[in-house]
């Protein structure tokens, strides 16, 4: 995603430095980080979203 050609997206995701990786619209990793760092960030986002979906799906008491 070429940041300067899509300024609305760059603004939406607060892209001030590149490379910046946005994960499922909510997580973010700035810089060319080691692979394991990126994997950890992806795993965290997916887990957090699954947990949030679980909470939302639970009947309130």
């Amino acid at each position: 995603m070429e940041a300067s050609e899509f300024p609305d997206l760059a603004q939406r995701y607060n892209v001030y430095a590149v490379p910046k990786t946005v994960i499922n619209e909510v997580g973010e990793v700035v810089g060319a980080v080691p692979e394991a760092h990126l994997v950890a960030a992806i795993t965290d986002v997916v887990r957090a979203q699954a947990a949030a979906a679980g909470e939302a799906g639970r009947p309130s008491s």
Partner: protein
Amino acid sequence: MPLLNDQDAAFVRTRLANELAHDVRLVFFAPSLGGLAVPGADWEMAEYTRRILREFASLSDRVHLEEHSLAGEPDLARQYGVARAPVTLVIGAEDYGVRFYGAPAGYEFVTLLELVLDVSKGQAPVSEATRAALAGLAADVHLQVFVTPT
């Protein structure tokens, strides 16, 4: 006058010849194709992208470029999940969801080359540990990597 000099063209031609596994389709959507186009920065970047893709595809008979228009072919764009342009979909044996938004200019031209080679092989050059961790994810992931040409 070509955008790629002879030396760069030769480098790309050699890598494509040696490393392509499956044929690759580059499905390019411009904001508009023919007809009315508003000249300006957006139009120039889209035309630059079209030119560099044509040169790229000319360097291997196993790289196939398809040129479309976002405005002119909304149904096809929707089918590919494309809402913005310029965009280049990089498709191999399957559509792995790889999209390059914007012009592959400057250093990002190398990114395009590497994307094409990875998609062709159907595999990204990641470690076994990464492969295992990603395979264990409970849901699909949408990654947007923001870059600049310099």
